[in-house]
């Protein structure tokens, strides 16, 4: 019968359509079975490192937050989340904290994946490779513990969400112990030096161990941590793999920094406007409004006060390198007393931070965004100052003085640089800063302030040394900060969404 032919045909069509409905995605990866070789580990380690260069972490949010919290950088714009940072009135809803908190934990999670993935590998070099993951995990937790104290401390990828939801904050002391253990693993397994400062080395691990112990020692006189800090710092010094760059300006020159012997650990920026904001915007944040440099000038957000500038000796080469005192604005060469000719509401007649906008190298977006500037996270000068501080604390002022004077001697060398108006200059060797006969803890800290100015180190120094009452008072470089409260402000509040998600976490008073 003819009609049955049709029916059969239709039934046939229907069967063609039957399917098991299992999803077979293309172009994505499943975690199961991903780690087969140490190359796969490296891929996850890169996943951890890239969180740090993101705009939400060092690219802007964390670096600017740390600058604003210090006593050296004023806020020129009025955005509330930045005001909260600058005035130390930071709330748990702060939009900067929430972003670098997330990025930190994304970096930690990628490291945890690599560490977990390494367990099942048999590659001979797996420990050497995965040691980078330990280093990165310590790097992120060290930022977190210094800012938040007790935090969720996870050393494995979260697979059971419900279990992860009920954990309590890990006390800061335990977090420090974890960081130290990770860095020890890193130190033991990483090569002594690597091709680039942005690839963790044993030297970088030792240097961080020195800073971690110094930080943990805090203000406690005779803390054994000072001794350990000194030991680690001297280990690096004695190995001799790093030295001070002869031109201080090279440290803030994207095209010179990679060849410099000074960086110990750096972040890697390659001038790509990557998706998810995986690039930096520090140069414009600190830059001068209307500045003819960098295709669009700066945004005048993070700006030093006049008092900060006045605290620098004009004969110290580091003053020239740290501040832009002149600029071309709309084709007119002006000194900092006329920076407001741009007419911009946030323009300010004061020298600007020069360490970012002067030599950003190749950049992919206007105003000097998405640069190729591999910012130093740890450089040899800081290591010397860590050693000096630890040495003073352990009663060896003589050794300390030697380290501090090395740093000062380098500054006296001067060097080639250019001004904010792009005028090439040479700073002749100077007698300033002169060698110190002996140093106190305060001297070392003051040297840090000058040497590492605007490198986002100052807040951590203030916090670990409990200097707030002094530096945020009316006599501070920024004048009195209205929100300063020594009982709560050394730690920042944990993002409210985290506390809402897991009430077992402890919130810091704010």
């Amino acid at each position: 019968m003819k009609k049955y032919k049709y029916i059969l045909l239709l039934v046939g069509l229907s069967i063609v359509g039957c399917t098991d409905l299992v999803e077979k995605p293309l172009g994505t990866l499943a975690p199961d079975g991903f780690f087969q070789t140490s190359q796969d580990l490296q891929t996850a380690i890169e996943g951890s490192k890239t969180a740090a260069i993101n705009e939400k972490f060092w690219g802007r949010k964390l670096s600017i937050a740390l600058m604003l919290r210090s006593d050296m950088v004023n806020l020129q714009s009025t955005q509330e989340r930045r005001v909260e940072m600058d005035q130390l009135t930071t709330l748990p809803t702060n939009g900067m904290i929430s972003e670098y908190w997330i990025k930190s934990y994304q970096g930690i999670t990628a490291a945890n994946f690599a560490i977990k993935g390494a367990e099942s590998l048999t590659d001979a070099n797996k420990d050497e490779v995965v040691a980078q993951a330990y280093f990165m995990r310590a790097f992120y937790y060290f930022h977190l513990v210094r800012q938040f104290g007790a935090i969720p401390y996870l050393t494995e990828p979260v697979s059971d969400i419900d279990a992860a939801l009920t954990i309590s904050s890990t006390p800061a002391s335990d977090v420090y112990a974890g960081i130290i253990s990770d860095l020890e693993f890193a130190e033991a397994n990483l090569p002594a030096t690597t091709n680039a400062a942005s690839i963790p080395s044993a030297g970088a691990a030792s240097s961080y161990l020195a800073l971690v112990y110094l930080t943990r020692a805090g203000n406690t006189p005779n803390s054994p941590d000072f001794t350990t800090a000194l030991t680690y710092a001297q280990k690096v010094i004695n190995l001799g793999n790093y030295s001070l760059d002869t031109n201080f300006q090279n440290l803030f020159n994207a095209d010179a920094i990679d060849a410099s012997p000074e960086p110990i650990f750096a972040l890697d920026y390659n001038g790509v406007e990557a998706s998810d904001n995986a690039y930096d915007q520090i140069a414009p944040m600190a830059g001068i409004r209307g500045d003819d440099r960098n295709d669009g000038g700066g945004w005048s957000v993070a700006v030093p006060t006049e008092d900060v500038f006045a605290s620098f000796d004009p004969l110290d080469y580091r003053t020239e390198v740290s501040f832009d005192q002149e600029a071309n604005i709309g084709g007119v060469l002006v000194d900092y007393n006329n920076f407001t000719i741009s007419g911009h509401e946030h323009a300010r007649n004061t020298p600007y931070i020069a360490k970012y906008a002067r030599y950003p190298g190749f950049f992919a977006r206007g105003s000097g965004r998405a640069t190729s500037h591999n910012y130093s996270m740890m450089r040899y000068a800081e290591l010397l100052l860590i050693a000096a501080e630890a040495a003073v604390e352990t009663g060896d002022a003589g050794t300390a003085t030697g380290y501090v004077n090395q740093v000062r001697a380098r500054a006296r060398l001067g060097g080639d640089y250019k001004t904010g108006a792009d005028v090439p200059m040479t700073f002749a060797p100077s007698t300033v800063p002169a060698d110190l006969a002996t140093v106190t803890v305060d001297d070392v800290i003051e040297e840090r302030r000058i040497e590492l100015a605007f490198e986002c180190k100052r807040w951590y120094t203030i916090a670990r040394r409990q200097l707030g009452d002094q530096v945020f008072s009316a006599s501070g470089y920024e004048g009195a900060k209205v929100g300063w409260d020594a009982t709560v402000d050394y730690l920042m509040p944990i993002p409210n969404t985290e506390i809402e998600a897991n009430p077992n976490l402890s919130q810091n008073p704010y």
Partner: protein
Amino acid sequence: MKKTLNFCKTKLLFTAFLLTNIALIAQSNQEISGKITSSTDNAPIPGVNVIVVGTSNGTTTDFDGNYQINAPEGSKISFSFLGFVTKTISVSNQTTLNISLEEDSNELDEVVVVGYGARKKSDITGSVSSVKSEELNAFPVADASQALQGRAAGVVVQSNNGGEPGAPISIKIRGNTSISASSSPLVVVDGFVGGTMPQAADIQSMEVLKDASATAIYGSRGSNGVILVTTKKGRQGKITVELNSSYSVQNTANKLDLLNAEDFVTYQQQIRTNNGNNTPYNDSGFDTDWQDLIYRTGNTQNHTLSFSGGTAKSNFYASGNYYKQDGVLINSGFEKATFLSNLDAQVTSKLKLGLNLYGSKSTKKGVATQSTGANGVGGGGDDAISLAMRFDPTKDITDTDGNFSTNDQIGDPVDNPYAVASQRTDNTKEDEFRANAYLEYEIIEDLTFKTTFGLSTRNTMQGIYVPSTLIVSASAVSGRASVENWKRSTALTENYLTYNKEIGKGKLTALAGFSYQRNLTERSLAQGTGFISDSFLYYGLESSTGFLQPESQYTEVEIQSVFGRLNYDLNDKYLITATVRRDGASNFSENYKYATFPSAALGWKISNEEFLKENKTISNLKLRASYGLTGNPSIAAYQSLALLSTLYASSEGETVPAVTAEQPANENLKWETSYQTNIGVDFGFLNNNINLSVDYYTIDTKDLILPNSGIPAYAGYLNDEILGNLGEINNSGFEISINTRNISNENFRWTTDFNISANKSKVLKLVNDADFFDDGTPSYFSHDRSTIMRVGEEVGLFWGLEYAGVKNGATPDGMAGRTGTTVDGDPLFVDIDGDGAITDEDRTIIGNPNADFNWGFTNNFVYKDFDLNIFFQGSSGGEIMNLTNVQLTNGDSNTTQDYFNNAWTPTNTNTDQPRVGNNSNREISSRFVEDGSYIRLKNIALGYNLPRNVYEKIGIENIRLAVSAQNLLTFTKYSGLDPEVNFFGSAGNNNQSTNTVNGFDFGNYPTVKSVTFSLNLKF
């Protein structure tokens, strides 16, 4: 004159043919001719179906109502035409049969398309609104969905970007039933699920299925309602050629009253003085009205040429449409050409075949509007509309170097609005093709099998080029280009059996079927910066010198389903409908692959009961009740799988591969389910001259997918939204439609249609019942919470500070200023937690964007050859968050005359507007919440049918001329440009923001007023 619903006709033909094909006996034929007229006015009726019952022999009347047919003696001829009572006459020996058809006053025999079939309107048990071709074509629209606005109760239609040519149109039926998933209805075009809307001119009717009884047959895709679109088909008779042409002239409906250059400089100086800032504002010396510069008179032309006709065994409809619009914003436009054809062939007495083809090609020239602030330009400088309101009026278009001027003294640097509108290229080209073939076979009497097989593909390419002439956005990088391609394709087969049988006093209709659908989406994005020449636009990407990451994606979704429906009508009084669909979908999570959605409905035709049958007043009375479950698929492909994500990373200056954890597996994620109840009553009074339908519904949507705020960021997944079935909302409301025939006589007819609906969407359950926030502001406003979902409250309420006026002297108790020192003239807010400072704890619900009522009101008047249509549409009770004013009172912009004149000063203290330069931080407060109610004269149209004797001789059947105006009048208290607002915040127009971000106004393409001239020619 009403037009035939083609479906009805083919069905009638087919049924008649089926019932009587046994009775085919050779008989002597005689030629019969005659004229068919309307009993009401004796006017001839063209297009009446004249069929010899039991044969395939038929014809239709010509324009003068004349017909000729050969019929054997003793046979029966039936005369049918939609809107008239069908007459069947036995042929004796007469050769002339003049028939007078009685108008079928109740329209209830009209056939309404439902899923996988059609029902007599009077037999419908669910809630279904029909919108007819005339309403859809009352004025020209780029997207036929737009024409639904105000036409069907419970259906809210809105452009997603004001009057933008080619803007996407959003439709919501009975409010949104979801939070994170789409709330858009399923569109089914001639049985093709997920088809795109054809041009309005090709649409015979649209049926809006609103309750579960009607939509559960679409199962997991039925929650948001279903729109069934039926395109025109040819009918037996001579070939008709029809031309519809229209031309419209358009202007912006409104402009804002902003400061001129002189006042602007004064204003900026005042701000600086108030802030103790002594940097003087540099007056650039011009006086530019940026709004004038970016707007122009726009126009739209719309032409459709169609051919249709058929024989007893086949019919066809073919049309071509050309639509072109030059937008009122310079450089914006939309152009589309569409072809559609429908073929049906009766191959044998039992076998019918058909093919539906659709093709279109469109180009949209876009101009950046509705800034999200995320487009790679700081400070939202990527949006011509809001820039035109903000930008420094002292600047000229270009500066002294001949470069386009930029805003360099306030806020972040931005390009000027003229440069943004004129320099950027943003073209979206879309090609679409759909073919759907069917085969229908009568297996045995009363049992037919139908199978359809269709393919559709939609290819979209969007090319954007930002040239180096745009100083802020692209000069530094020497141009920025991107090309994004989307290829979407669907294969669909539906196979079903339909069984019709009279059983005793009842009629049974049963349906059972199987369907399989596969949707593929492929996307690629190539981009770069740094070009030798701006003339490349987005072609020649290989010459780019700046690297931007390319992207590509693939997704595949398969859905297979079985479905069935049972209708039983007893005595033409009691109606029962039951449906069920079981859907399996690949995108559903591992533990929940299959979902079942049942529904049932009852109808009672009370007017057919003895006690009402003879009632003169009540001519129709029917009660309807339904209950059922429908779903929202809500889970995107691969969303429930454990995934790693690839990332950009840099090592030693090189870009290197990197991965991190994207999301853990979510094996228990389920679709969202709506539990819908509908109760309705249909009344007809006075011989159905007055028809009234009232529906009440309540929809509980459970298992709403929400990001589990229980997942902390410290879990470290890149996707910080791990989803669960955690929410519940309820929509309830009523809908009333009234259609009246007020006057109907030979020369004058007046009909009125009115519909009104009220919907309340209430949040019943959220994650841990904690408040759920979203944000409707652009990202550079730096807010993240401006709307709230709170258990027990309506959906998407405004969240912010309660404005308490201006500080003038001591701050009253219970109020406080913003953080920091507060001086006279600063804004005060209600200090809800009483801690003496304004903090996040002082935020509260400050407004409700949800309208209480939406309505449409149409009056049609026909006097002899003239007709007049007046269509009002309105909305009341919804509030608007005027973000434009938030920005314009922030100080880093131009501002309104109103604010400039009324802001607090030491000499103007009696005001509720704070001093200028009060450092508002673009605060979201009740100060910016306004009543968004409006009444709009959506369309007024006057038409004239030229007297037939003028052109009859040259073979033209009808000439009609019309002039109409759209959006001519709008009555509203809203101070912004237009009360139909549609800004979706920094996330843009995505599924969630269209549900939770409503009532925000910022940078929309303006609504336009237009005047349209149109011509209709029929041959």
